[in-house]
């Protein structure tokens, strides 16, 4: 402790102590010279002898100084000094520095973007108040995990569990939207969207205006702790009221995009799958609940039988469509909730069809709330690890690039390095100094990468926002870097700085050492090293290119996967009846058949068929132009057979 205070005192009067140290050493030199003179040496000889005896004065002073400091402080001081010197060198070579920083920033930025996106999508918590209390519930059977439950099972869990302060059920469906008024603008919306422009969604398959509806249990908004920004939510209505007047909530996003923020939206009656529903509230902007993205509509589970035209929809135990999310009661752990649920799951199992997989033994799995369904092994999606690998490769290429640049530059700095080495600076110390410089570059690149990433993801999320057509809802994506991402980027840039700087630093300090001995050191070794770096860079880039190419090919192959039908020369036509229509179902069928007959009679059409996709109220009619040859005709015939089956 006393020693600590003494050291502290020394450090506070540092400049005076420094002067004293110099004086002390000068005195020693003087005494030594005196000795020489006494031995009969000339003044010059005495001075030379004394200097020889004293050795490297700077080194002695530095070693002595270190007696007064702490190793860590010394290290920090020398790093700071190196960084300051490095910064001066970087400013002197501004052009090279800017290029280096940009190259590294690009590499780091790609990594940071992937990490941020992974973070924002895969590790996304549920969109709820106190999201850490929210959990997902899954059943793990021998045949695999499932997140889907039937309504009767949901009711049984909801009414008997004490581990949760609330349990909600939800499912997403696509409903046909009508009576919404205004220009649907659907085709424009699809063609204008990113996926539409890429040709991934064809406007022709849309067939009337549709919208995603998240069907949720009536307690959904209460349990998630979200209140509508306008109107009210389902909790405020009794079951009888909900039954008499089917109601839905609209998302702020859809309200703005589809209805232009119509101030009269509350109370508006629209039709979803022909069911007249009243909009009673607007959910907050980007509110995603337990799913991905903000859907256009939220409907209470009680109208699900109406939307699906099935009275028994909610009573069938095998109709397992709902995902369950719970809010843990205060002080209850996930393991406790799991333990409470298991016996109930066992009882419910007995009620299921003994032939179905639902009757298999199953263990309840309660895990932190996430919009993702359960992963079979709880592992990271292989796709993500591939993308991360590719991003790491990009960084490696950038590092190799910067590394060879540094190597070339260090060679031009050989004079400076040999001077330092001759002055008694050890080689590890020179390596450290060069390394500090490249770490400095790495960190600067990291900071730039952080901004680049942020800007890039902002733009990407804007693009994503427009990538999905209106009916699919809005994907909300928060690209603002959080603490974890900043730490990640700093760690990556530190590693990149070391990676890019280590080999050049080792090599150039070695060749500088050689240069002291041989005034003209042929640095064949370092040139070869540079060749290796360039070779590594090229091969890494090649691997990257091939992998990227394979990714794209695979993706396109999946889109154009052959379905077994010959669809060449087949023209499809969608139509639907206006809602409400004066025709009953049989009447519509007559109209559809009439249309088919007339189409078939058209010159140039060789065959016509029509079908109605199951569960929907629209007709798809396909025709084959007469110009079509054999295979096309076969295709049409196949389609026709298929259509007959469906009808």
């Amino acid at each position, binding site marked *: 402790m006393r*020693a600590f205070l003494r050291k502290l005192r020394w450090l506070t009067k540092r400049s005076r102590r420094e002067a004293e140290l110099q004086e002390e050493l000068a005195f020693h030199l003087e005494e030594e010279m005196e000795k020489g003179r006494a031995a009969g040496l000339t003044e010059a000889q005495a001075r030379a002898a004394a200097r020889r005896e004293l050795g490297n004065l700077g080194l002695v002073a530095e070693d002595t100084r*270190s*007696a*007064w400091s702490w190793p860590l402080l010394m290290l920090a001081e020398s790093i700071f000094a190196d960084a300051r010197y490095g910064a001066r060198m970087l400013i002197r070579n501004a052009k090279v520095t800017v290029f280096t920083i940009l190259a590294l920033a690009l590499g780091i930025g790609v990594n940071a973007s992937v990490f941020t996106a992974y973070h924002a999508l895969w590790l996304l918590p549920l969109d709820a108040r106190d999201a850490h209390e929210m959990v997902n519930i899954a059943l793990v059977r021998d045949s695999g995990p499932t997140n889907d439950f039937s309504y009767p099972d949901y009711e049984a869990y909801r009414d008997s569990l004490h581990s949760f302060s609330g349990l909600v059920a939800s499912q997403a469906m696509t409903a046909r939207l009508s009576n919404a008024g205004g220009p649907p603008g659907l085709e424009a919306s699809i063609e204008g969207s990113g996926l539409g422009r890429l040709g991934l969604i064809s406007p022709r398959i849309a067939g009337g205006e549709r919208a995603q509806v998240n069907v949720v249990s009536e307690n959904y908004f209460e349990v998630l702790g979200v209140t509508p920004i306008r109107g009210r939510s389902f909790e405020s209505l009794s079951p009888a009221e909900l039954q008499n007047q089917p109601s839905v909530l609209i998302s702020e996003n859809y309200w703005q995009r589809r209805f232009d923020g119509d101030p009269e939206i509350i109370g508006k009656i629209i039709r979803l799958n022909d069911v007249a529903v009243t909009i009673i509230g607007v959910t907050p902007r980007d509110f995603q609940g337990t799913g991905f993205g903000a859907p256009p509509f939220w409907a209470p589970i009680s109208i699900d039988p109406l939307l699906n035209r099935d009275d028994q929809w909610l009573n069938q135990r095998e109709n397992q469509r709902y995902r369950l999310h719970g809010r843990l009661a205060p002080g209850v752990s996930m393991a406790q909730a799991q333990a409470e649920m298991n016996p109930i799951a066992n009882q419910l199992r007995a009620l299921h069809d003994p032939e179905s997989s639902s009757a298999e033994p199953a263990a309840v799995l309660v895990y932190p709330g996430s919009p993702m369904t359960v992963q079979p092994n709880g592992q990271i999606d292989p796709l993500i690890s591939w993308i991360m690998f590719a991003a790491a490769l990009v960084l490696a290429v950038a590092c190799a690039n910067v590394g060879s640049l540094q190597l070339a530059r260090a060679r031009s700095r050989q004079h400076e390095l040999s001077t330092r080495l001759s002055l008694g600076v050890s080689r590890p110390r020179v390596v450290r100094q060069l390394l500090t410089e490249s770490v400095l570059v790495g960190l600067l690149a990291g900071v730039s990468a952080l901004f680049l990433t942020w800007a890039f993801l902002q733009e990407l999320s804007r693009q994503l926002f427009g990538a999905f057509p209106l009916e699919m809802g809005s994907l909300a994506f928060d690209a603002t870097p959080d603490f974890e991402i900043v730490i990640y980027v700093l760690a990556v840039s530190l590693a990149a700085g070391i990676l890019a700087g280590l080999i050049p630093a080792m090599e150039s300090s070695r060749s500088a050492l050689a240069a002291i001995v041989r005034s003209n050191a042929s640095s064949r070794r370092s040139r070869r090293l540079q060749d290796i770096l360039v070779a590594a860079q090229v091969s890494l880039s090649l691997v990257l290119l091939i992998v990227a190419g394979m990714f794209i090919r695979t993706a396109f192959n999946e889109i154009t996967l052959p379905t077994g039908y010959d669809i060449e020369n087949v023209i499809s036509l969608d139509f639907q009846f206006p809602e409400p229509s004066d025709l009953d179902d049989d009447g519509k069928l007559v109209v559809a058949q009439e249309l088919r007959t007339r189409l078939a009679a058209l010159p140039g059409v060789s065959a016509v068929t029509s079908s109605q996709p199951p569960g929907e109220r629209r007709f798809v009619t396909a025709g084959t132009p007469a110009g079509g040859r054999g295979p096309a005709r076969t295709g049409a015939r196949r389609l026709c057979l298929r259509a007959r089956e469906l009808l």
Partner: protein
Amino acid sequence: MKKQAPPRVEVLQGTLDLLILRTLLFGPSHGHAIAKHIQGVSEELLQIETGSLYPALHRLEAQGWIDASWEKSEKGKRAKYYRLTTSGRKHLAAERTKWETFSRAMTLVLKPSGEEL
């Protein structure tokens, strides 16, 4: 560039402190004189490197075993004089016992009794 000099012994790691403290037992002295004294007493067998003398002096000072003050040397120049403190004296005694034990042990091992040289 070897000088003609009596064969020198490197000062063992850690023993320089002991030598300095022992030298200061005779009274305050400056760095140069300490080095010369050790050399003289050891019949020039021990050569003290300036490169390790001053770091050692400052380390001892930081530990509080020696004190320093600026005084006039015999030739009238300002010099930094070191003197032993009370805790330095205690430390010296402890280190000395340690060294003597060590050196006795070394001797016993190297020259076992009964062995004739």
